[in-house]
């Protein structure tokens, strides 16, 4: 029991650091693709330290300050419900559907905070983020339902258990189309191009982050770091069979690497195009995968 509690306290901190390193590695790899050197891989950790030491940043009110707090809180609680390295911290107390709803707390809290900032750029960013969410959630749920039917259960540990025993048992082989659909949805969940409309620094002045500076921005960076691990973690647990601690992070980085490569070379879609794309092609791919699973 104490082992569990210690792990529960230690893991979020570990995940934050690893997430920030992922973000730094993303910048390094993108830079190498651009044929330049790029920042050191621990650059995002330095960024967060700098952001937390800034003073006199603007504060629009109580809800504004609570926005990033709820964002971090929502992500930490989602983290605790995903088995990392096959250690089920709280996974027996909630399954995939619980997780999908817990994942909503963080953006919702941040959206409420952005609203109090009273900046139209922020509101437009949130509107775009919600539209995109309507797009990719449908695809995600199509794939998740396929996994649930194939495994006969919605519990993460059960799904991981069925994938033990080697690479051949991973769900990505029988559920290839669903995995493909999830990976396309993952691109938007991570906020990577071509689906980073909510952030869009060139169009809407970084959207929701427009009024957040200093420690708030630092908290949002931490939120993004945990989010990367959580979201790639969902893919790893559902399709790539979980794995021991080190392997889990390797697989998670592999998923992130694919997203990163697409991000480095693609421009951004219009939000209407992105939404329509999600409700046509990935949804169709997912539905075909779902029908195949339902028939067999």
């Amino acid at each position, binding site marked *: 029991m104490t082992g569990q509690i210690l792990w529960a306290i230690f893991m979020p901190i570990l995940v934050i650091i690893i997430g920030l390193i992922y973000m730094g590695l993303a910048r390094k790899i993108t830079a190498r693709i651009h044929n330049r050197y790029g920042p050191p891989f621990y650059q995002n950790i330095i960024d967060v330290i700098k952001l937390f030491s800034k003073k006199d940043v603007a504060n629009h009110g109580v809800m504004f300050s609570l926005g990033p707090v709820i964002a*971090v809180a929502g992500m930490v609680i989602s983290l605790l419900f995903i088995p990392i390295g096959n250690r089920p911290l709280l996974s027996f*107390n909630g399954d995939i559907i619980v997780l999908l709803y817990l994942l909503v707390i963080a953006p919702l809290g941040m959206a409420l905070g952005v609203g109090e*900032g*009273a900046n139209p750029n922020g*509101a437009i960013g949130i509107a775009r983020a919600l539209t995109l969410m309507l797009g990719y959630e449908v695809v995600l*749920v199509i794939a998740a339902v396929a996994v649930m039917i194939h495994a006969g259960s919605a519990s993460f540990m*059960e799904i991981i258990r069925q994938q033990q025993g080697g690479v051949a048992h991973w769900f990505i082989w029988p559920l290839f189309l669903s995995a493909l659909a999830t990976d396309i949805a993952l691109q938007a969940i991570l906020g990577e191009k071509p689906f980073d409309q909510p952030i869009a620094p060139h169009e809407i*002045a970084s959207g929701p982050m427009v009024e957040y500076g200093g420690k708030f921005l630092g908290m949002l960076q931490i939120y993004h770091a945990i989010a990367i691990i959580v979201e790639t973690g969902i893919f790893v647990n559902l399709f790539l069979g979980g794995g021991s601690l080190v392997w889990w992070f390797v697989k998670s980085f592999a998923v992130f690497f694919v997203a990163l490569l697409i991000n480095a070379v693609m421009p951004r879609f219009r939000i209407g195009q992105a939404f329509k794309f999600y409700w046509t092609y990935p949804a169709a791919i997912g539905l075909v995968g779902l029908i195949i699973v339902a028939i067999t």
Partner: protein
Amino acid sequence: MNPYELLAAVFGLGAILTYLLGHFDRHLKTWLTLITLALATYIFLHLPNEYSLESPSLLFGIDKLSWLFGILTLGLGTIVAFALLAYPELSPNFYFMFILNIGASIFLLLSRDLVAFFLMWELMSWTIFAMILGDGGAERGRAATKYLVWSAIGAAFILFAFAILAKSTNSFEWSGIVAGISQMPSGWRVAAIALLIAGFAVKAAIMPMHTWVPDAYAESPHPFTAFLSGVLSKLGIYGIFLAFFVLSARFELVNMPKIFGTHIFGYILAWIGALTAFGASLIAIKQEHAKRLLAWSSISQLGYILFGFGIGSAIGIAGALFHAVSHALFKTLLFLILAGVIKRTGTDRMAELGGLIKKMPLSFIFAVVGGLALAGIPMTIGFPSKWLIYEAAIHQGFIFTTVLIFAASTAVFLYYYRFVFSIFLGELHANHQDVKEVPFPIWFSYILISIPIFWLGLFPGKAMQIFAEIAEQFDLPAVTNFTATTITTPLGSFNALIVGLVFFASFAFGLLLYFIGGRTRKVHQYDTFLAGEADEPVKLHYGQRFFYFLERELKPLYRISVEKIYQFVAEFTRFVADQVRKGFFCGNAQAYLYYMTIFIVILVFAIWRIKL
């Protein structure tokens, strides 16, 4: 005196007294209403099981299902009546109708035979019509008339179905019908139940009987809309439950052909529910008036409940009943909040509101609470119900409808955020600089409703207990695998209390990060990033056409409209009738002479034949 008669007397006397004495003091009518409802609740909680009135022969009784909906009606009715303390401008007529309405609803829930049920149903519908009218006005009249027409159509369906049932089973009582329905030929059986469900669907706002809802909800007096949407639509749900599970003696669960393991009747109901949920939530996204937005949201959530009933498994039924309870709670809360906002600012057009968080912080906090419940966030009552419905759907193999209702659930986040942002967040309008917080009765009612939202959200097992008893009573599959805080289904489990506690721990972690950081300075609302520009007297509130890019993409879907179909049918009928009229009443005296001559010839011929 028998408690049932006492209850009827309390309601009747309460209504008359309130009407008569209400003219003397502004608040007296509300206090009288509250006293009536309090007395009624007390009596309701102590009712014996059965009661039959001799002449006319009516039968009443109470069981778990009636108890559940009755507590919901009386509880929420009392809270809404308490909030009415802040609305002294409503006439005593309104309170008279209000008490009569609650009385009719309670006796509706208590009736155990067809005549009593129909009488109470009609009384309830008619009082709603009177209350929607409120103070009158052209728009209100139109909306109320639309409601009345639909209500009449629904009542006609119900009456027709009752006639079929009574004739075929030779009994007017619930028990007789249940016993006799297995003997009915299956065609009549299905017809009767389908008609019943269609009739109740009018009240429960299921597509395609929903077109009265946006207008009626938008035009009715604001605190009354909370009651209408929260409680009275649940009476339609009660009726559907009655028709589908009780009166039909579960034939649909046992005797009908199956598709993928669910019976075809339930399958059709589930599809209707899912399409309602999906379509209504998409329409809610593009509303510009907050009341209409919440009205479409109600239609969508009621579709969820029908979906749960259609699935027909243990978790499905429990989830649907749970969702009925939670929807009653959070919709009442949201409409009351909106009523408070309209009271203080005078408008519900979201383009004209904004920034009210600074002036009405309490309303904002409870709007967030209501929204969390609406969106189905764990820790509030909205989540266990939705979770159960999803689990039921996936377990039974309903794949396409699950996708539809999940899309509906995601759409909730969209329109809910629009609602909260356009009213409370964003920029404060220049006209609303002097807006004050809502008066005490209203915000106290927020607190009262929020308590069960969190209590049942953290301890869903308490509600599951009641649903299990209801299911067992009617011989339906019942959920047994739950504790006070955890529910376990064949697919997975959910521990509500742990989620709540862990969230507080995470929130503490977030606060820790907050206090690690440097200090901040408070800035004015207008000191925001405007690309270096200074604050101009230009309104920067993003309150209009919030999701315009989404509406553009969904335009083909938006062209499908049930209302247009009805309008087309109405126009066509009028056209045909007009042509017929023009054909006969053509203003030509010769034609009229012909008619008269033919008529006289026929008359003579008939009399000649009869005489012979």
